[in-house]
């Protein structure tokens, strides 16, 4: 079973999402109240997650101390989760 919408395209077009849709779907379905998911919703959630990863990484890096050492560390991330309102839902994970 293909586990991803990864760039198999031979025309050289960039794939819309790098994250595997099947995995995203598994996570979404682990929510008990969810009945079914339209394919577009799945694609958008995957894309949103990518954007989120990028945002979390860059935000933590910019605001963190690792910047001087040109590194992103766990501390940078936990600081972000605790201090930033946007990322507050991550605190404690």
């Amino acid at each position: 079973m293909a586990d991803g919408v990864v760039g198999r395209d031979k025309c050289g077009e960039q794939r819309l999402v790098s994250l595997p849709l099947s995995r995203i779907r598994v996570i979404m379905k682990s929510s008990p109240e969810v009945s079914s998911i339209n394919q577009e919703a799945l694609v958008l959630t995957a894309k949103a997650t990518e954007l989120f990863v990028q945002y979390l990484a860059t935000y933590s890096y910019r605001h963190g101390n690792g910047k001087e050492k040109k590194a992103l560390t766990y501390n940078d991330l936990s600081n972000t989760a605790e201090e930033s309102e946007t990322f507050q839902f991550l605190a404690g994970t």
Partner: protein
Amino acid sequence: MAERPEDLNLPNAVITRIIKEALPDGVNISKEARSAISRAASVFVLYATSCANNFAMKGKRKTLNASDVLSAMEEMEFQRFIAPLKEALEAYRREQKGKKEASEQKKKDKDKKTDSEEQDKSRDEDNDEDEERLEEEEQNEEEEVDN
């Protein structure tokens, strides 16, 4: 495939690539940081799904759709994602339309060409991949209907 806790995580390789592309060149990412981001991403999916589901229920629908996800982003205060998501949605819809037309076109081409068998062989491989993908998508749609 047995459902293990790891299956609720996203593949490390892809997460790492996304992070690297987002950060300036030469920045190192510790294993713990990457792992934390990966977990955060899973939490994000759950949070977004739950939010989107609320919108679906408000609309008395059982199936989550694209607009539910977009509304969820707004609700979660990730408005910055909405514009790129809308673009992605448009691109995806165009691609779906294009795929359908392309595979119909390929079938027409196949009928026309009787020479250059090598070219046809590689096109057949492409076709098989596309057909597999289409089948998968169809299966997915069927799953949703059953649910």
